[in-house]
């Protein structure tokens, strides 16, 4: 999996590419949690190029969401392919995670 990390103003964006599974979730967890412990409060995770997610990937996003909430921050998820979004819905994560169509929509939420 490729992770591109961008910082624009007060917003950290993680663009994910490839597969987020048990093999790749640890490196993503480290990048994301490092940014949050460095004080990132507005985080966008862009799923446009992500082809695959398993429960190991969901686990990372859940952990990061809980941590960032404690420092009054927020994670926005955007640009998901239909079948990736379906995984979030089956897991019930769409009830507490904001999933929006585009990065622009995500930016507006901060």
């Amino acid at each position, binding site marked *: 999996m490729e992770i591109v990390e961008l910082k624009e103003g007060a917003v950290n964006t993680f663009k994910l590419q490839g597969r987020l599974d*048990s093999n790749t979730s640890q490196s993503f967890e480290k990048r994301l949690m490092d940014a949050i412990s460095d004080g990132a409060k507005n985080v966008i995770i862009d799923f446009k190029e992500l082809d*695959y997610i398993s429960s190991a990937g969901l686990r990372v996003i859940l952990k990061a969401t*809980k941590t960032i909430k404690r420092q009054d921050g927020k994670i926005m998820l955007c640009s998901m392919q239909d079948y990736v979004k379906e995984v979030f819905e089956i897991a*019930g*994560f769409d009830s507490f995670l904001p999933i929006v169509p585009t990065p622009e929509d995500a930016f507006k939420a901060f």
Partner: protein
Amino acid sequence: MNTSGPISFELRNHLSELATLCEKMEAVGQTLGLPRRCLFEVNLALDELFTNIISYGFQDQSEHFIRVRVSAAPDMLTVVLEDDGVAFNPVERIPPDLPCTLDECKVGGLGIHLVKNLMDEVTYERRAGTNVLTLKKTIERS
């Protein structure tokens, strides 16, 4: 529409074999002409079950093989997963309470919850020291 005899392969009990699983299933998808979404869902179910087996199934340090057998009727895909790990019936697992709030949300059991929801049928048998899981998935061709 392609139909063919069963396709079998084996995976070692190592997390790096997830990549092999994905490659093999891509090839199966091509051979059987499976729609992308169907392939994604079957891949995810197998990933979750395989990850569970290698994380909890083996108590010794030796190498084990997990066998995957895929067969297809025109509108039904059947995948059988066999391992010689400790007896474990994922079908009996109590599903997590969903939907949940962020604070209540636990990730335990989520993988199996995904499997049950993505597949049409999941059955378990313990047969001569082997866990045999049979997954059935309707192939929806557009």
